[in-house]
């Protein structure tokens, strides 16, 4: 066994800090590969003893990239436990905020985080990123910024600030949308829709197709998928949780309150992220995937026009249930289009500007589960509180917990492409691991609700059969 240590460049452009270790067998081939999440914060503990009305303000701080779904999953958990159902315009405005977050977040990922690989394939890895993207594609970046400005402004108008919004209160929102704002935002989202479709048609999709040829089969695996659906259509804010098997058959449809019957978690000795899994038999180690690809695979139809068209295109290319890991990027595009179309549908409804503020609520002991689709997939918040409304127990399962096992399986497959009989093609390994992991768009902050314990941003470690560090 070689014991030389080589510095492997950290993989970047993911949310948070993750390292990778690869164990080699006696023959110098890949035996195991693990992603290590190096952060821990302990949000569940410090929610306990706090008033449950504070949960929607504390939980967004789990993740600055997707604070809106945390904010909304928390308020939904409270409302379900207190038996409240907000008026229809309130639910629609909350979905509007969530849809806008999906668009903002997907755009950042599509055009910067993963976008640097697609749009700058000839640059060395270390030079890929926002400054070189802007230098090479100034007009594209300007358009992306203008689009995000529309969606982030809608969130901050309703929620004071786009990152860590303060919008949702029991049965209501802190703020109304004026008729003038509704019209202005409707015009804005229509422009965003046009721009996304045009930019992707002309530039982004051809580049993705090229990358999918260059990295054919990268990280492919067969898994179950879990996502929200409403009447068999894609859903973001409200719906039924659906599990499908790798062939597309529906394994279960269940309401948020029944999540413990269908989704479990296991601790992983080598990661601060727990892995969510499906305890019912039939799936490989209970592995499932969440996120844009799950939303697209699980829904029978999109429910909006342009996303529906793209979904048909997607299925003709990847089958009824897409399993290609890099297809997650295309699914993210469909998800962005679906979200902007939902935002448009909601803003086209004049009824969203009028609703009555909720009456004050009397707290009583309760327990509630709130589930929404975050940009990265199914997000579950579960709280139990006492008669005065103080939280006694809290549990949060994020999409990156769901994808933790799948990332490990993909990683093993990807590593084997660059490591044979002790020979390691480091450059290829580093490159392909990054591209595969970015396709999952993991959110490390979410996965651990964690206090960052980072050493490297994303170091790759290779261990020999005795567990000694082979390369770093």
């Amino acid at each position, binding site marked *: 066994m070689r014991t030389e240590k080589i510095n492997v460049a950290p993989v970047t452009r993911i949310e948070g800090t993750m390292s990778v270790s690869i164990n080699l067998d006696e023959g110098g081939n890949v035996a195991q590969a693990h992603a290590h999440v190096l952060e821990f914060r302990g949000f569940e503990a410090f929610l306990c003893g706090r008033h449950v009305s504070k949960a929607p303000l504390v939980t967004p*701080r789990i993740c*600055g990239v997707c604070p809106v779904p945390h904010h909304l999953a928390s308020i939904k958990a409270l409302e379900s436990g207190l038996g409240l159902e907000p008026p229809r315009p309130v639910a629609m405005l909350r979905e509007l905020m969530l849809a806008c977050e999906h668009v903002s977040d997907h755009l950042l990922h599509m055009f910067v*985080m993963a976008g640097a690989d697609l749009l700058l394939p000839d640059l060395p890895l270390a030079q890929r*990123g926002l400054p070189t993207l802007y230098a090479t594609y100034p007009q594209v970046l300007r358009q992306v910024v203008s689009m995000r400005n529309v969606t982030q402004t809608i969130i901050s108008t309703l929620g004071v*600030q786009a990152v860590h919004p303060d919008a949702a209160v029991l049965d209501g929102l802190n703020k109304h949308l004026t008729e003038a704002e509704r019209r202005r935002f409707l015009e804005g989202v229509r422009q965003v829709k046009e721009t996304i479709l045009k930019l992707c048609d002309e530039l982004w999709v051809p580049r993705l197709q090229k990358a999918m040829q260059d990295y054919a089969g990268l990280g492919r695996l067969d898994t179950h998928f879990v996502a929200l659906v409403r009447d068999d259509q894609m859903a973001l804010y409200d719906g039924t949780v659906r599990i499908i098997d790798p062939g597309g058959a529906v394994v279960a449809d269940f309401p948020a309150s029944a999540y413990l019957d269908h989704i479990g978690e296991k601790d992983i000795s080598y990661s601060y992220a727990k892995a969510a899994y499906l305890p019912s038999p039939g799936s490989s180690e209970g592995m499932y995937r969440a996120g844009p690809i799950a939303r697209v695979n699980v829904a029978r139809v999109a429910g909006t026009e342009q996303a529906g068209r793209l979904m048909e295109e997607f299925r003709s290319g990847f089958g009824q249930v897409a399993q290609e890991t890099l297809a997650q990027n295309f699914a993210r595009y469909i998800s962005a289009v679906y979200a902007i179309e939902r935002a448009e549908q909601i803003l086209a409804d004049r009824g969203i500007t009028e609703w009555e503020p909720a009456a004050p609520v009397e707290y009583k002991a309760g327990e509630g589960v709130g589930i929404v689709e975050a940009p990265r997939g199914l997000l579950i918040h579960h709280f139990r509180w006492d008669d005065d409304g103080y939280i006694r127990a809290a549990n949060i399962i994020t999409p990156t917990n769901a994808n933790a096992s799948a990332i490990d399986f993909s990683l093993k497959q990807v590593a084997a492409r660059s490591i044979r009989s002790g020979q390691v093609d480091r450059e290829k390994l580093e490159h392909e691991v990054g591209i595969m992991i970015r396709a999952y768009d993991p959110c490390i902050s979410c996965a651990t609700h964690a206090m*960052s314990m980072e050493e490297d941003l994303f170091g790759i470690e290779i261990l020999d059969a005795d567990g000694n560090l082979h390369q770093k």
Partner: protein
Amino acid sequence: MKRKATLAIQDLCACDGCEVALADMGHVLLDLLDDKVDLVYAPLFMSAHDYGEVDILMLTGVARTEDDIAHLRQARQRARYIVSFGSCATFGGIPGLANLYERATLLETAYQNAPSLRVGEGTIPSELLPALTGEIRPIGAYVDVDFSLPGCPPPPRLLADFLERVLKQLPLQGERS
């Protein structure tokens, strides 16, 4: 001819919301990149692995490991101005709530008491992972900070005003185009 000011964004333990606020500066950020700022390090947005020496280093999040702390001590030699970026770096923020609990309680709650945990033996993860240490302190406890920008996150407009003012203070004449 004025050269551009070099800027690095280093996140410690953070939610990355401060970086998103920076992205939310939008066109103002791109205008700065045009002729005033050379963004050399920001892991969320780019793959550069290090930042050498910079004019402005913005630190977000809280420090948890000795490594983080050593990194903070090193920072002083590598940056003309150090900015405590956001409430976590400046005060401890929401992650600072951890100081109210025993470390064991935090870990047991997450890895042993969660109702969705079904398999496994309730192992507290440790393999190949950095150990959790100490309490959360403002980064100013470890390194001399030139500017503090509180806010969770600091609003994009505040960031724009701040950068404009700090750029005026920097001696950037004639070093390169």
